């Protein structure tokens, strides 16, 4: 039988630092895509409430006790760090845990680093907000786990490129700041 080696998406790539900026991988949480069935919004809301969460409006996220739910598109959200079983019957649930690389960027100037890669003004982006946009040419889910910190989610297959582009932007920002 094949011996499979478990690796994280950014294994051997992260962490990296650049001045006061740091880039590290976030691992271990279960990720489930939640797409509500028609007419099930009320029951889904009740099931989420038991997890301390609520269905996110577009461009928002909410969290409680290590679990979070992030808006990711029309009638779709990602439940992160929680068991989705209690939502069964109210929404289509799809395990996405191994499909995404999650990368946390933080430190002074983090928004300026992302300004080089993301076509959205992220000054003032704060916990509770979520958005879908691009990181370079990669589709991205972006949240703010803490003030001044960003969590970037890209497809796992894009992990190396995402780390490369982010690290490059961090170095360029640091070099420019030193002038």
């Amino acid at each position, binding site marked *: 039988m094949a011996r499979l080696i478990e690796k994280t998406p950014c294994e051997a790539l992260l962490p990296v630092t650049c001045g006061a900026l740091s880039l590290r991988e976030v691992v271990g949480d279960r990720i489930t895509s939640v797409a509500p069935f028609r007419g099930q919004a009320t029951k889904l809301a009740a099931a989420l409430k038991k997890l301390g969460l609520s269905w996110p409006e577009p*461009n928002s996220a909410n969290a409680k006790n290590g679990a979070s739910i992030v808006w990711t*598109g*029309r009638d779709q959200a990602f439940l992160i760090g929680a068991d989705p079983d209690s939502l069964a019957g109210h929404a289509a649930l799809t395990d996405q845990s191994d499909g995404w690389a999650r990368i946390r960027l933080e430190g002074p100037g983090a928004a300026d680093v992302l300004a080089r890669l993301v*076509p*959205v003004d992220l000054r003032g982006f704060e916990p509770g907000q979520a958005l*879908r*946009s*691009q990181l370079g040419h990669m589709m991205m889910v972006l949240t703010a786990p803490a003030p001044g910190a960003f969590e970037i989610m890209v497809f796992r297959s894009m992990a190396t490129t995402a780390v490369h582009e982010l690290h490059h932007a961090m170095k360029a920002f640091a070099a420019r700041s030193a002038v």
Partner: protein
Amino acid sequence: MRITCPLCGTRDRREFYYYGDAVYADRPAGGAAPAAWDDYLHLRDNPAGETRDLWYHEAGCSAWIEVTRNTVTHAILSTRLVAERGGTDGAAPKPRTKGKSA
């Protein structure tokens, strides 16, 4: 050029993929006359002025959007989700304003 996604808000044009005239969303019913299919497949207005077309928020939320814009001024006049415009699956489409010349 910036387009307002009804869900995400105002975004750069690079996040969107252009599909074509919004008439693509008004597919004739199954038993429609050949002339209706001919119109649907091949005949398009080419207005100098207001027009409507379909855009896909490809690098954003993945929603299909109907954009009303002006081909002369490049102004984006309004946007709405294709899911909310009606007219799909052979259902009666909402009236479509023909392009006006400027």
